[in-house]
């Protein structure tokens, strides 16, 4: 379909603005815009049709099952969208005096209290904008903590699991730490021997997801925590999988000192096609002085912003964080109350049920009950029929499902990482299982139909290699290239998609 720029015609417009009867003011010559930006010139009717058509070519949780592992694609309640658009929230300026923002400050304070309780820790900063920024913030906190103790030079290493999400090593690098990786044992836990060998006085801490990206709870988490704490190091909890354990097991109780929570996963901030998110960090008391400023604090019945935190790492984002995200997540949590536990229970039940329906046709690398998600391997299909995880994913589209995360975690070959979430009905799980089983059959009986998938989407399989080589990353107007003349270079990449 056309780009909005291709719908543009000179002289058309949608928007209208008030024109006041005031003299025009000239921009100084040398600062004045010479060539106007070629923004689209379209009428409102076309604008609405254009974006309606784009929405129609986008699959969301509202459209259907979206079992993208590690992403917690749960239902996003509509009441949250209602409350977030109350003018008292939506039209509130972040520099409004505290006295004129008591409702907003109270909401944030309450959310902080809730997150501390859910994580089993003491203090919260809502500032980070997403999970990965939460990670970075957490590592900065680690560094500040050790600096404060005079151990900054000594503790240069952060350890991650070989199952870790890519953001973990990236955050380690961006925060100036050295990275060390620990292996996974044959039950899917951290390999304790490997771990003991790698933890020493140079260790600043561990970054871990628990349940892991394999969807497995580390059975030795107490030992793991002891190893780090004994070495004077800290434990960081990547909260991406918190949806499995709310009200069941708390990161603080597991021994973690710093946690980030993905509000856009566990607490239902809609993902928005890639954001916004929210990545609050929750810490044990000794780390509190280092949290970003300003802190949201309560003085008796009034709430205020505390900038006076001399040990603070500073700021990682503007103001106090993505407030609209807090409104939605706060509303979500208040809907469940202590029933958050049931939310996690059902997430785990749904995952285990789906696993039970699939484990005889796809390989299960670690034969345990899963938590809120599980990872299968399409290795056998590949070996026997040349059908890869990518092919299975693409073929699922033809059955009306969004594919799971694939090729992640990296330690499972041809990984299919499936997270149904708690909001799905059993019928959907049954239908998805049937599709997966049917595709496994097709792999044998009709592999070409699987390899050629998808067949029923607005486009066929896309050439990702060509895109990367040609790097056409904006519309070129009159000079826009015609890529259909470039020969195909490789189609879709067999690389991590999802999470």
């Amino acid at each position: 379909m056309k780009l909005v720029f291709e719908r543009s015609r000179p002289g058309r417009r949608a928007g209208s603005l008030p024109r006041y009867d005031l003299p025009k003011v000239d921009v100084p010559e040398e600062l004045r815009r010479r060539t106007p930006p070629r923004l689209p010139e379209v009428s409102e009717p076309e604008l609405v049709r254009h974006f309606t058509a784009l929405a129609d070519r986008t699959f969301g949780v509202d459209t259907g099952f979206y079992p993208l592992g590690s992403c917690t694609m749960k239902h996003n309640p509509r009441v949250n969208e209602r409350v977030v658009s109350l003018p008292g929230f939506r039209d509130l300026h972040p520099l409004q005096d505290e006295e004129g923002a008591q409702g907003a400050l109270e909401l944030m304070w309450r959310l902080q209290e809730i997150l501390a309780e859910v994580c089993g820790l003491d203090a919260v900063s809502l500032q980070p904008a997403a999970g990965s920024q939460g990670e970075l913030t957490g590592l900065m906190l680690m560094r500040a903590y050790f600096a404060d103790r005079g151990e900054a030079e000594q503790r240069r290493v952060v350890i991650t699991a070989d199952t870790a999400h890519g953001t973990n090593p990236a955050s380690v690098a961006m925060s100036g730490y050295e990275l060390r990786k620990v292996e996974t044992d044959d039950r899917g836990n951290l390999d304790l021997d490997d771990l003991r060998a790698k933890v020493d006085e140079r260790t600043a801490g561990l970054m871990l997801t628990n349940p892991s990206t394999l969807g497995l709870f580390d059975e030795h988490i107490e030992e793991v925590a002891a190893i780090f704490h004994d070495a004077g190091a800290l434990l960081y909890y990547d909260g991406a999988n918190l949806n499995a354990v709310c009200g069941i097991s708390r990161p603080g109780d597991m021994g973690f000192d710093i946690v980030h929570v993905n509000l856009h996963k566990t607490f239902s901030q809609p993902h928005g096609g890639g954001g916004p998110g929210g990545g609050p960090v929750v810490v044990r008391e000794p780390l509190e002085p280092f949290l970003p400023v300003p802190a949201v604090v309560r003085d008796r019945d009034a709430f205020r912003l505390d900038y006076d935190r001399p040990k603070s790492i500073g700021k990682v984002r503007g103001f106090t964080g993505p407030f609209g995200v807090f409104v939605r997540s706060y509303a979500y949590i208040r809907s469940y109350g202590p029933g958050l536990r049931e939310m996690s229970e059902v997430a785990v039940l749904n995952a285990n049920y789906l696993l039970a329906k699939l484990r005889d046709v796809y390989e299960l690398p670690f034969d345990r009950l899963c938590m809120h998600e599980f990872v299968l391997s399409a290795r056998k299909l590949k070996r026997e029929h040349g059908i890869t995880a990518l092919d299975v994913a693409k073929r699922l589209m033809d059955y009306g499902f969004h594919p799971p995360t694939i090729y992640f975690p990296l330690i499972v070959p041809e990984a299919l990482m499936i997270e149904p979430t708690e909001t799905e009905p059993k019928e959907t799980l049954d239908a998805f299982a049937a599709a997966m089983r049917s595709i496994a059959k097709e792999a044998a009986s009709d592999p070409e139909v699987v390899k050629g998938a998808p067949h029923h989407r607005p486009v066929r399989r896309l050439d990702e290699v060509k895109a990367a080589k040609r790097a056409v990353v904006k519309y070129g107007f009159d000079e826009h290239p015609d890529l259909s003349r470039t020969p195909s270079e490789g189609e879709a990449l067999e690389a991590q998609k999802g999470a």
Partner: protein
Amino acid sequence: MSFLSLTPDDREAMLEAVGVGSVEELFRDIPEAVRLGRELALDPSLSEPEIVAHLTELAARNADTTRELSFLGAGIYDHYVPAVVDAVLARGEFLTAYTPYQPEMSQGVLQAIFEYQTAICELTGMDVSNASGYDGTTVAADACFVAKHATGRSKVVLCETLNPQVRQVVKTYAPGFGLETVEVPHRDGVTDVDELRSACADAACAVFQQPNFFGCLEPAPDIAAAAGEAGALPVAHVDPVSLGVLEAPGAYGCALAIGEGQGAGNYQSYGGPHYGFIAARSDLIRRMPGRIVGETTDLAGERGYVLTLQTREQHIRREKATSNITTNQTLLALAGLVHLSWLGPQGLRELGETCMSLAEYAKERIDLPLVFPEAATFKEFAVRVGRNAQEIVRAARERGVHPGYALGRDYPGLDDAVLVAVTEKRTPADVDRLAAVLGEVAA
């Protein structure tokens, strides 16, 4: 209230299929000692009408800009958000989709991002934009990281007229990124180009803001030239709303253009979520942080869009990635695209002109000295209120008008200065009222 879909019968059948006797048993791998063993100490579940009532009560305790005549700006602005923006963002498909890893499922959002990238490049005069950064602060840190790798230098120069929060975030990121920061003071509200030039020796980049935090117009082309001559990448932090009337950073030699997108399509929302944008010259494309959408074709030769240049990214490149970002601000950037498409080039220019005219009118009407009388401004300017600005703000608010941001917190010498911002939503009559109230309280 809950959003679960299993019936009691379902649960039983499913437990049986799993082969466990109870939900409890599903958690058998969790060591007893780390289980919670009690109910979460949270307030009881609320029904939907109660949620609405409770949040409405909280919202009512905020003095938002629909209830108070406000001239607050300082980085976040009460520009008009067109109704089409809300309508597009309410589409469940956009709202509830993930990052478009599987392009065949997500052509709509991919194309929208490609269009957004184009719009940002057009605004800024750059060659490549990513799909968005978190906000106008973090993109500055990102830009410094790009500059560090592109130049091999580790010093970054920040103008003092750059939004204080932006500077603070860069400084917070700096140790991890291996950067040192230096600041260039302003003279009469704008950056001293000579001081900047000398600061730029050995620097990776120089970050300046146009219009700057005081609302003043910087000698941006001179700044860019001075930085460039010293081998530092010029990085412009720009207000998208100004770019219909102010020159594009690409046109005067900047290597990167960044900014806070809020004014174009996002509500104030007490500071977020909004989008930050970052765009660069083509030679920096493989150093860009975050998602980038590229054009390609499908099996049948049809045009389509995919996430591209992913070898820059954490999920492929891990510790060698150009950034750790994954979740970004796509929905807010989409709002930006819709807003900019609604405006078009003509609307964007008119918007800038209206803001400038109103600001000029406000300067005239307000009977107080300007802090920087020499500087040309865009939609914001600072006035001296004669005594502690926070007190003036309080007094004016009691009369129903928020006159703007008290600059003292960020600029110790400016304790008596208020930064006044106008947008097209303020009328000349509103400005008259501000002038009258300031006249009363600052007399």
